[in-house]
């Protein structure tokens, strides 16, 4: 009896210990690792609060399920911009008060320090990332240079990797068809525009290998399964820098957006979660993140000094989506558009895939 008592007490306290952890859910791979190094480890060192990171192919999915079923085990999640807005509207996320976020290192209040749109009702941006396409320089020494080249199977033969979903694929198709970035979403709101995007995709459909998790894209490229692939720019950067892969990013037609830290409604450690977000999205936190992976910081004060990669020599500025040289033909993801049309276009996308 006594033994059972001790055992069950131990188990219960273990359970409590596990609950006391702040759980941060992110995308895994090179990105999750960068966030772990830049946010989680320094936070643990500074506050002593046990914090762990868990991976998901897309944190928006489990978060919604957790809140709906009333069993929330995650305190902070990293979501795409449109998902952060959609889930906020559906009441799945906790509002975050911008006035609780720390001022910039130079004293600028948070409200002025963050880039426009980087703080929303329920989310705070951690970085600006981009959908780009990349190729293996050993296969194409002369390299594709424009977004149209991605769809040009004659000039650049070989398989293409694309993310399995409508978002960023339809935009890419329209830009590849010669639509200027500024007109992409207006066109996609019309049935003709959607048809046009799918018609463009039809031209390469037989050669496409579809990927679902962010880490698959550089892997497909490294395995030689595809000649070029769309990817999150930081993943390609990480593969090139950390593993010396001969990958080159084509910035023409890049599609960029903010990544948001959010707190699910009913998070077990609400106060700690808010503290973690304030810590991570401080001037220093965002700088630390940009030293790990090539995603642009969302605060002006983080970019006042030159950011150098963790290897100590690579200057990050030209590798960021926000670098002026990379913004020539760039499209900012429209959260409004995807909040409205995500369901419909993904359904259409599935139907198109199955045909």
């Amino acid at each position, binding site marked *: 009896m006594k033994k059972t008592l001790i055992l069950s007490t131990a188990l219960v306290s273990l359970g409590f210990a596990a609950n006391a952890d702040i759980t941060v859910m992110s995308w895994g791979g090179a990105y999750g690792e960068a966030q772990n190094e830049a946010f989680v480890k320094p936070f643990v060192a500074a506050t002593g609060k046990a914090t762990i990171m868990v991976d998901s192919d*897309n944190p928006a*999915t489990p978060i*919604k*399920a957790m809140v*709906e079923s009333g069993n929330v085990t995650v305190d902070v999640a990293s979501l795409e911009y449109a998902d952060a807005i*959609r889930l*906020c*509207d*559906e*009441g799945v996320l906790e509002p975050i008060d911008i006035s609780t976020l720390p001022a910039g290192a130079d004293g600028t209040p948070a409200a002025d320090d963050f880039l426009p749109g980087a703080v929303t009702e329920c989310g705070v941006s951690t970085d600006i990332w981009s959908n780009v396409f990349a190729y293996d320089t050993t296969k194409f020494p002369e390299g594709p240079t424009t977004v149209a080249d991605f769809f040009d199977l004659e000039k650049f033969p070989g398989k293409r990797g694309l993310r399995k979903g409508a978002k960023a694929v339809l935009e890419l198709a329209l830009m590849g068809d010669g639509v200027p970035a500024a007109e992409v979403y207006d066109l996609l*709101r019309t049935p003709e525009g959607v*048809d046009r995007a*799918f018609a463009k995709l039809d031209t390469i*459909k037989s050669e*496409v*290998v*579809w990927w679902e998790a962010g880490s698959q894209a550089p892997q497909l490229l490294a*395995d*030689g*399964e595809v000649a070029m692939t769309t990817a999150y720019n930081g993943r390609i950067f990480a593969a090139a820098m950390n593993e010396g892969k001969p990958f080159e990013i084509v910035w023409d037609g890049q599609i960029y957006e903010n990544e948001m830290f959010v707190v699910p409604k009913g998070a077990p450690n609400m106060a700690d979660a808010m503290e973690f977000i304030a810590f991570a999205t401080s001037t220093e936190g965002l700088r630390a993140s940009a030293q790990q992976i090539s995603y642009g910081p969302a605060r002006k004060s983080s970019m006042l000094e030159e950011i150098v990669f963790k290897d100590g020599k690579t200057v990050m500025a030209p590798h960021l989506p926000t670098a002026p040289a990379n913004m020539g033909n760039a499209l900012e993801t429209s959260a*409004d558009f995807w*909040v*409205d*049309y*995500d*369901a*419909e276009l*993904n*359904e*259409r996308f*599935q*139907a*198109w*895939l*199955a*045909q």
Partner: protein
Amino acid sequence: MAEANAPLLTTADGRPLKAALATAQQRAKRRAFLLVTPLLLFVLLTFLVPIAYMLMRSVEHDGFAASAPALVTWFEENPDFDPANPPEAAYAALVQDLARMQVERTTGIAGTRINYSVPGTISLFKGGARAAADLAPPYRESLLEVDEAWGQTALWRGMQSASGTYTTEFYRVASDLKLTDEGWARGQDNERIYLYLFIKTFMISAIITVLCLLLAFPVAHLLATLPMAKSALLMILVLLPFWTSLLVRTTSWIVLLQEQGVVNNVLVSMGLVDDAGRLSMMYNMTGTIVAMTHVLLPFMILPLYSVMKVIPPSYARAARSLGATSWTTFRRVYLPQTLPGIAAGSLLVFILAVGYYITPALVGGADGQLISNLIAFHMSKSNWSLAAAIAAMLLVSILVLYWLYDRLVGIDRLKFG
């Protein structure tokens, strides 16, 4: 008459025998019931309740009804209004509800609900709700000024249909119907997917069942007729993959069949296929069929084996001695006796194949997807009601098949081993 006078039979302690027997039987029944109670509770909690909950989900969604009470009331009072031209009173109720949604922060919930049938409405609701508090009568003009999309016929039809807590809308969407200005109509060819995938799922499952039967029948016969020592060894070869994780087996097929995989490498090195013309056997329908046939094969072999094992060989010998050819013996003597096993195996494999998820998700690529992958897709896009509706349709079609099977073959002939 003699019985009436006979002394009442009693037990040793003097109780009437009949009563004692009844008590004992009661106790035995109670004990039996207590023994199965855990299982009953388990099945109830983990199986029946979730299924009932899922079926509820597919017809119940009060996202809009709960956040727009004024409009719901108006719809109830005016069921026959013209959605192409709703009167001022309807707009007034709508504006009142929008203002309320803004205060209660339910815009997203209501918008999402309507968005299921009328795309593009979430931001429409958000814009409308933000502006609602400042709108002045006439509401119709002022709301259309905010966004003329508020006048869409389909939108009003959608709101009317969403104003009840219970709806058949998700079943309509799952039957490839779309809400248009004229009401529910068949979607365009490039938008229809569900019925196509249902048919495809059943076709692929049927193909896999037939393949399994063709492959399993000789194997099971061999297992049943070999001497014990040899058949036990062979049985292990059947059971070993059966015990191996599904995921492991599926990924080994990827290793074997992919373009840079073992099979292609062998073919190329033997000169049967040139390097540029490597066969694509993975990430398509072929991959799904090959991997699923392999995974489901034991479910066919085992019931067949259990039936064949007990068929006396003397029947076949008797037939032969009476002059039947081998073919006639097989067709008229052996095959009919294996029917319960064929029936059980086919039913098992078919039903498992229809609901299969992991294998097609991993090796199916773009055109090897089955309906279960779409259920998972909608779960992940958090449209649980639509996922539930598709799942319910799948459940019903399997029950229909089961019923047909019972009428044609008879469920009592099933023999699972």
